């Protein structure tokens, strides 16, 4: 991000940027940066808290008034805790019977997607939007693509993309579907709890853990690239069985 700042300024455009990793910003020295203590993925911190987002945005824009630079300012506010932060021991608000059909993870994934549908639909209705849809196919078709690959068939493709690209997009949509559904239940859990639920408590988690093994063992470089770089978060990988 800091490199883009330098390049855009070279091109004549003033910039001011959020810094998520302070040490990187200290090294790259962009003209203007506001370090925030929020989670990676949340540069403006708090969903549906317009006042908080506005304060961060104003602090960021005010850096454009600095007479000289580089400027690196620490934003003083922490992201507020939600009620869910205080609920010790809440593993995840969603629980489904995805343990059946252990021999066919693709089928278990498809059935779990059906079970979750009411919560996903509720989330979509409440938010008035969904982030499922990067692949351009339905989540059911995305699950079929994953199931086919797990069963040794890789014939289903989206727009002629490579196996790795297909699987990446299918994964992106399935994961968004689960996370949105999980967020719709009462007493919604923290992002980390939903992440752990997805990987350790659902058929989807088991299917994708298995998919990683299948892809890494395949001869298809695109599938290997997907499995090694864009499938399992580091924080989860350390806990998965080898």
């Amino acid at each position: 991000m800091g490199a883009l700042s330098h390049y855009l300024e070279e091109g004549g455009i003033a910039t001011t940027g959020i810094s998520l990793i302070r040490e990187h910003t200290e090294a790259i020295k962009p003209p203007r940066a506001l370090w925030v203590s929020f989670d990676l993925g949340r540069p403006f911190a708090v969903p549906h808290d317009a006042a908080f987002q506005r304060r961060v945005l104003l602090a960021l824009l005010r850096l454009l008034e600095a007479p000289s630079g580089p400027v690196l300012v620490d934003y003083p506010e922490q992201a507020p805790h939600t009620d869910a932060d205080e609920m010790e021991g809440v593993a995840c608000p969603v629980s489904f019977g995805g343990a059946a059909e252990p021999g066919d993870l693709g089928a278990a994934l498809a059935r779990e997607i059906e079970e979750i549908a009411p919560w996903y639909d509720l989330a979509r209705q409440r938010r008035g939007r969904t982030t499922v849809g990067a692949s351009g196919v339905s989540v059911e078709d995305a699950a079929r693509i994953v199931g086919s690959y797990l069963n040794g068939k890789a014939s289903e493709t989206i727009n002629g993309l490579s196996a790795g690209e297909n699987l990446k997009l299918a994964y992106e949509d399935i994961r968004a579907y689960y996370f949105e559904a999980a967020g719709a239940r009462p007493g919604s859990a923290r992002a980390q709890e939903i992440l752990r639920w997805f990987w350790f408590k659902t058929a989807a988690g088991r299917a994708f853990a298995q998919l990683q093994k299948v892809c890494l063992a395949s001869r298809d470089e695109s599938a290997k690239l997907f499995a090694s770089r864009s499938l399992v978060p580091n924080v989860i990988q350390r806990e998965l069985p080898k």
Partner: protein
Amino acid sequence: MVRLADLHPADAKAQLDKIPALTGFGRPWVKPPVLSKARIAIVTTAGLHRRGDRPYGPSAKSTDYRVIPGNTPASELVMSHQSVNFDRSGFQEDHNVVFPIDRLSELAREGIIGSVAEYHYAFMGAAPIKELKPKAMELAWLLKKDKVDAVLLSPV
């Protein structure tokens, strides 16, 4: 989050390893007009695009960007970033967590900033940073054509 001391040692080391590549830039400094006259665009590295746009490819060297018109409904925004090591649930709940277009528009209506650009831009944010320069220079030219004075950068 996020000082490196807060991360798992392996993740902190991965972040530290990136630092040598982050040095050696010049000190360009563009002075924008006063905020109340400035036209502002958002550039994010969150891997955002419109539903139906070409998703970001698997190459970590990819430097291509997607255009997000300012009037794009939130329901049309999706994410296909290659990294899985950041939270997406905030964006799923509210696009402004990553792409604060509603807040920026409010500031324009209140006269705190001059105006909001017609077009905003998204990168996938995993490319080697020195390879970004040609696309960034192209973007600067496009931003000038949209009469943009300043950009706010939103990473994930």
